[in-house]
Structure formats: C-alpha cells, structure tokens
C-alpha cells in the first residue's frame, strides 16, 4: 500500500513533496489518457475484425461452401468467465476447429506485448483442451484438430512479424498469423505460415475477401469487451427517443444478440453478470446514476451526438484521474525512498 500524500508530506519534511507530486501527476494523466483512448479505439477495431471473420465464414458464404468451414460462435467458453479467443469456425466433416483471435497494434510493436499474447494464447488453448467435451457438445461434432490463428491489420505487418520471430516457442503458443488488409479488403496468411487444412490453406494463401461487404452479422459488441465500449455500442447508439434513460433490459437484450457457444440458462446467467459488471463500472465513474429503477446518463447534453461526445470525455477524464492518482502516489513514494537511500551515503 502506498502512503497517502499527507503521510508523505509528514514523513519527508525537507522535500517539496506536493510540488513533485503535481509534476508526476500531470505526467501520469497524459500517459493514462493516451492508454485509455487506445484501449477504446482497439475495442472498435477488434470488434470489426471479429465481425469480418464471422461474416467471411458465415454458413452459405462462398468460402464456407468451398472449404466446409463455417462460423459457429464468438468467444468460445466465455461461460467459464475466462477470456478466450474471439471467433470459432469449424468443419463438421473432419472435426477441425479454428480459433481466431484478432489483435490490433500501436505504432510501436513491443516484444513484451507479443510475449503476453503468446502466453495468453497458451492459457486459452489450455482452457479449450480442458473443456473440449463442452465444446464438442456445443458444436455437436467431435473436435479432432485445433488451429489457433491471430488476425492482425496490415500496416505494421513487418514489425509484428519481427517481434513474433524474435520470441522462442518456450514462451507460449505461437499462433498462425493472418493479415487483414483493410484497404485492399483481403485476409491473407502471413508469409511462412500454413494452415492444417489444405483447401483452407490455399484459400488464405491466395487471399480471402471478407464477407462483411455484402453481409454482416448483428454483433453489437463482444461479450467480454470493455464495459464502456459495451455501453457506447448498446446504450449511446440505441435508437430510442429517451436517450438519457435506460434499464437493464436494454443491455440484456443487446447482449443476447451476440452468438455464443452456451445457451439457455447458462447464457442468461452470463449476460446478467456481464450487465452487472457494466453497470457497476459506469456507476463507479459517475457515467450513470440510478433513478427509480432505471439508469440515467449523467450529462447535460440533450442531443445524442453531444451526449455521446461529452460522456466519453467525462469517462476518460474520470478514469484517467483515478489511475493517475494511484500511479503517481506509487511513483512518488518510490522516488522519495530512492532519494533517502542516497542520503545515507
């Protein structure tokens, strides 16, 4: 536990604790703000990628007919409450499944991020193996082969692959890389990668046109998405007259549109707990408040566009201030301790 600012002022009477804190706090504000803006932007890209893959393999699509692989559902095994891959496609005929994870990258592709991804893939794959029986039941066919793919956007392909290749397989599971060229509207296998299924391998080698141009599935958000992103997608963009008020039902309704592996009571319970998480999160950052069994968006705006802009700014501000306060105190304490340890010499 870091000390409070007041404690530190008392403990280090000779230092300009408050001045230093202010300086650190301002730096941290900037860092956290950028981080959150990135997170929210990534959520949008992430959803769009998952959307593209799902639509591409939608039953009846050209590629589904040619390869036998069909979109099944998003976020397999999310009912375990553990994060998993984004999309599951499978081939009933040969019992093969392909799990696709979509990732977007900042300008700089860090090795550490890649290490985290491999570790994450490895953990998720373990869950898949542990719960294979459940998955087989949901799919109504045995699972014989599993391919793990990661789909990325094209601009940083070289950087991503460089980071990818610089890390050894002992660090986790290295997924098969697919590259989405949004401008050219194609998904390709990255150079040097292969899929187990020969037909599918050939298709991706030549480049698959995402189905999302002529067909898209109604996927409002990802069930394990960021709470604010879910709120923005389902409430702020919900076409109703009373923009500022909503009830749980609206969130539940929207989330129930998401195609998931689980069904029935299990799905209802999963959605209900997700709705709790989202609402708690929004209440914590004063984005909404409870009012006679409903929730009211706390914004002075009247029109949807104004409210959407203002509430996003507010959320970023509140979240950033909270995080910056925490991390500034940590940093300040560390700094003061180091200073003191130098005093001893």
């Amino acid at each position, binding site marked *: 536990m870091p000390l409070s600012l007041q404690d530190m002022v008392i403990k280090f009477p000779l230092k300009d604790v408050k001045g230093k804190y202010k300086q650190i706090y301002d730096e941290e504000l900037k860092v956290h703000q950028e981080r959150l803006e990135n997170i929210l*932007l990534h959520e*949008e*890209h992430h959803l*769009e990628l998952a959307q593209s893959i799902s639509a591409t393999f*939608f*039953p009846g699509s050209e590629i589904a007919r040619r390869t036998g692989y069909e979109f*099944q*559902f998003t976020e397999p095994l999310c009912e375990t409450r553990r994060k998993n891959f984004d999309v599951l496609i499978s081939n009933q005929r040969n019992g093969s499944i392909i799990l696709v994870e979509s990732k977007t990258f900042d300008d700089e592709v860090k090795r550490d991020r890649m290490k985290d991804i491999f570790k994450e893939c490895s953990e998720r794959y373990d869950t898949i193996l542990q719960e294979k029986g459940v998955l087989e039941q*949901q799919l*109504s066919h045995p699972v014989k082969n599993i391919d793990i793919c990661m789909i990325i956007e094209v601009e940083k392909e070289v950087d991503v692959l460089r980071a990818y290749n610089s890390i050894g397989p002992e660090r986790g599971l290295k997924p098969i890389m697919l590259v989405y060229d*949004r*401008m050219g*509207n194609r998904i390709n296998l990255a150079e040097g990668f292969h899929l187990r299924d020969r037909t599918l391998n050939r298709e991706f080698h030549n480049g698959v046109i995402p189905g*999302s*141009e*002529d*067909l*898209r*599935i*109604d996927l409002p958000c990802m069930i394990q998405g960021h709470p604010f992103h879910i709120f923005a997608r389902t409430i*702020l*963009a*919900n*076409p*109703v*007259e009373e923009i500022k008020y909503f009830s749980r039902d609206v969130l539940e309704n929207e989330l129930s*549109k998401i*195609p998931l592996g689980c*069904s029935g009571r299990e799905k209802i319970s999963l959605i209900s707990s997700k709705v709790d998480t989202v609402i708690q999160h929004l209440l914590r950052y004063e984005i909404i408040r409870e009012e006679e069994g409903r929730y009211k968006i706390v914004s002075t705006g009247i*029109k*949807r*566009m104004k409210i*959407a802009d203002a509430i996003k700014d507010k959320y970023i501000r509140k979240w950033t201030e909270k995080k910056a306060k925490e991390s500034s105190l940590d940093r300040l304490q560390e700094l003061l301790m180091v200073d003191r340890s130098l005093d001893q010499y």
Partner: protein
Amino acid sequence: MTLIQIPDEATFTSLREVLSFIDESEERISRTLQIIGFLTSYHKVEDTFMILLKNGYTLKRRHGIMAHFGKGDEELLVILTEEGVLYLITNLRKTDQIPEYILPLFKGEKNVYHLYVSPSMMMDIAASFIGQDKRGRITHFSGRYIPGSGKKSRIRPEIKRNAQYSGEDGYETLKEWASYYGIYPNIVTFGMFNDTSFRIDSQGIFSVYHGDCKNVLPFIDLIVRSNIMIKDRIEKTTSYEQVKLDDKNRTIGVEHPWKVDIATSLGGYDINAILRESSEEWKISYLSRIVDEGFLLADLIDECKMVKTELRIRNNTLNIYPSSKVDMGTNMKIYDLITSNIDVRAEVR
C-alpha cells in the same frame, strides 16, 4: 380557409384527375396551391387516416383515391396513388405553416420520406425542360455549394456558399454559377411558356403560383420515377433477417447492405468531418467508430424514426447496413444526406 368545393359524388382515380378538377373549378384558390409528395409503403389512402386523425384532422369525405380532410378552417386533400406515392394538397403558407404543420406529420412514420429532388436531379430537370425543350425559363433559384461534395467550383473552391438569384435569365445564371461557383440548386422557380409558374423544392414541395396545376405533372412524374428507381434499387439488396444457425435454436441477425458509389477525392477523414457537421440538419445522429483515410465506420441514427444503420465506406463505396430493421424512409433520407453533402451524383448500385 376554403380550399375548394368538391361535389359529394365526385370520385378520383389519379392525381391528374384531381389537378384537372382544381384547374377547371370556377373558384380561385386563395393563396398558392401547394402539392407535397411523399414516397410511402401505404397501400390505400385509409392507411394515412390514423396519423391525420391523431393530429386533429377530421375526414370530410372520401372521393376515390382522394380523401378530403379539415382542421379548423384549414383543408387538406390527401391522395394515395397505386405506387404508394402520397400527395397532400393544401393552401397553407410554405414559409412557416407547411414546415410547422404538414412536414412533421409523416416524419416519424415507418417507410415514409418526402419525394426527394437531389441537386443533380434538379439540374437535370432544368437542363431537359428549359435547356433542351425550351418550354420556359427559370426565374428564381436558391442553391448551395459545399467544398469537396463532387461539385466543381472554379473560383475559390474552398469556400462554402449559399446563393439566391432572381431574374429572367435564371437558367443561364444557374449554369454559370454551377460552373464557376459549384452552386447546385435546391429550390427552382419555373416560368413556363404555357403561362404556368411554379416552384420545386428539394423536399418534394411543388408550389403552383399561376396557371394550370396539371402542367406541373410532367415534372412531378419525372421526380416520382427517379425516387421509385432509387427506392427499388435499395430494396433489392438490403435486408435484415434472423437466421437459424443450428439445431440448438441458435439464431443470429444477418444484415445485407445497400450500396452507393461515389466519385470523389474525399478520404475517410474528410467524409467523417462532413457527415459530423451536416447530419444534424437531416435529424440524423452520426456516431463515428473507426476513421481512417481509406476506411470509415459509423452509426447513423434516424432520430425521427428511431432507426439505426451502420455505414462502412471503402474504396469510394458506401455500404449501409440495417441494424435490426430496414426502413425505406430512413434509407431515402441517408441517400439525400449523401447526395446533398458528399457527392451530388452518387449512384445507388
């Protein structure tokens, strides 16, 4: 204010018959006669009654495809054609009464949008009736220019402008202003040599100042044809359906878009800025989600009908996806928004 006396037994089967009746009627209609057109999915004139009754109008009498309504001293002739085109005929003032009382009537209704006269359609009408056929002249117009919206302005192309012109040489001036300043018209007054003078407004309002109403029919017909063609193209491709995925009752919403091709040098950032600024005038909320030079993803919410669509732009093609339901009126409104602000010659594929 009495519009016109109609004998109880009179019955009409077309807009032409109604207009001819008005033309041949002994009495002169006080004030300018206004014909306001809407594209709808209604099948019979009764389908419009609920809205009118709800808004305080009372039915005086049915006359075939026309119904005669009244509200205080205001009168309204309501006509629904076989194609589902609704016409409201009134002598209310266009400046304030029509926007205040008449236009809002059907704004929130499903699958309704006023007959839309795009800037380029207005130009085409002027070129064909006035330019080629020389059937009259243009005596007044107003129009605007928005930088980058596919209109070419030779002089100071970066300036946004609104313009109004009155003069006997309206057609020549319009051509010149279009060429020099990129001005495209949204309101044009025609003075025809058959002594009919009328105004066409981009919102499907035809104001007959002088002469026979039926002389406006060729113009109305042209606009109706064009609107129906756009509507048919949209409806041919777009749909929202619940598809059953497997035997576990897993269903999923599937959205098929309609597409608009644009010829413009505008990139995703430009289009985003334009739509953000202009959509409010169309009562559309524009919520951008991904903005890149070559790609744009945004939600468009029609705040009149409470209908949401998703817009994806890639390689000069706009894809508009229905979100949970398709509304023809919302789609026509989006097409209006696109041709008015992004590319005047944007074509529905």
